[in-house]
């Protein structure tokens, strides 16, 4: 296994090809739950969990079920079905085995099915022809990048609450501008 490539995938997924700032995936939760650091951390953790799991399951299904049967055109349907059932399963499992974790993540889990970052990473993994370990790494690192972006924006938005923002920009407007400036930083402009 090529360790160099693996590290490359991890670093680029977290920083350079950050899911939020350069791939534009998962923006709805990014704007929706980035008002408080606490909730954005919860969301980030839930996404990390599901995305890593989803990357590996979709890879296995694609490799051993879809490709041998020539069913690649069903990718989108299969993947979204896997993700939806995975989220449901994770929700039930955490509720049963770890009520504390469920309390922390519970509200965010149903939202994840329609988080395009999860389906996005599954499709990217197939497109880039990653191996199993690489897919898992890209899923995990992508989610870490997502969490990083979410927490940074939440931190800034918490402070923005108390600062003198022009009336028209209040709320989501200034959040977008902030995200733009953050994107410049991530993009290395």
């Amino acid at each position, binding site marked *: 296994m090529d360790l160099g490539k693996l590290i490359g995938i991890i670093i680029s997924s977290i920083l350079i090809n950050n899911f939020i*700032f*350069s*791939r*534009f*995936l*998962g*923006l*709805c939760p*990014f*704007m929706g739950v980035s008002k408080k650091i606490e909730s954005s951390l919860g969301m980030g953790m839930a996404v990390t969990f599901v995305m890593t799991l989803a990357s590996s399951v979709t890879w296995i299904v694609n490799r051993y079920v879809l490709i041998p049967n020539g069913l690649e*055109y*069903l*990718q*989108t*349907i299969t993947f*979204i*079905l896997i993700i*939806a059932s995975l989220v449901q399963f994770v929700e039930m499992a955490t509720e049963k085995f770890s009520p504390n974790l469920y309390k922390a993540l519970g509200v965010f889990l149903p939202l994840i*099915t*329609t*988080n*395009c970052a999860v*389906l*996005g990473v599954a*499709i*990217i993994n197939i*497109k880039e022809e990653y191996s199993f370990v690489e897919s898992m790494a890209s899923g995990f690192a992508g989610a870490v990048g997502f969490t990083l972006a979410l927490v940074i924006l939440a931190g800034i938005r918490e402070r923005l609450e108390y600062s003198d923002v*022009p*009336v*028209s*920009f*209040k709320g*989501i*407007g*200034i*959040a*977008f*501008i902030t*995200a*733009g*400036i953050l*994107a*410049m930083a991530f*993009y290395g*402009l």
Partner: protein
Amino acid sequence: MKINFREISRGIFKENPTFVLFLGLCPTLGVTTSAVNGIAMGLATLFVLILSNVIISMIKNLIPSKIRIPAYIMVIATLVTVLELSMKAYFPSLYEVLGIFIPLIVVNCIILGRAESYASKNSILNSMFDGIGNGLGFTLSLTVIGSIREILGSGKLFGLSIVDKLFDPAMIFILPPGAFITIGVLVAIINKYKQKGSR
């Protein structure tokens, strides 16, 4: 057949999915590097939105309410696959440009949102008009954002050079940061007008 303009115009202006409800943000920012891309993405979504609204409204009484969300997602995913395959066959270059955002129409919150909040409760015809309205509203927003970014970022509109010697295009507007800033300013402008109207 009576055209229900109220259902159509609501999705375009009063409840515009992009600028009022902030739904479907990923493609809004991801593909709007030019006006043409914005229109193409908007029309692709419009196609799926109309059909999914019609189909879901047709089968709304057959689906048990407990599994309605997965059922809606399956309908939408099937339609997206149809769209994906036809685009690959007939518009390969457009398919290349829009790339990953075509399969991601499945998880566009506008479509699931309309299915859950409108098509599952209303008649087939009204659901169709609701789909047309919301789809057009989305297309319009994407085209506006795409045009602004194309003019500022590359000095062109629909591929035609229009601001030749007026100013030097700022590359940043077709890069990701420009997307965030453009939509942030547009939202602020819309807020400004809303405040004026309510006063």
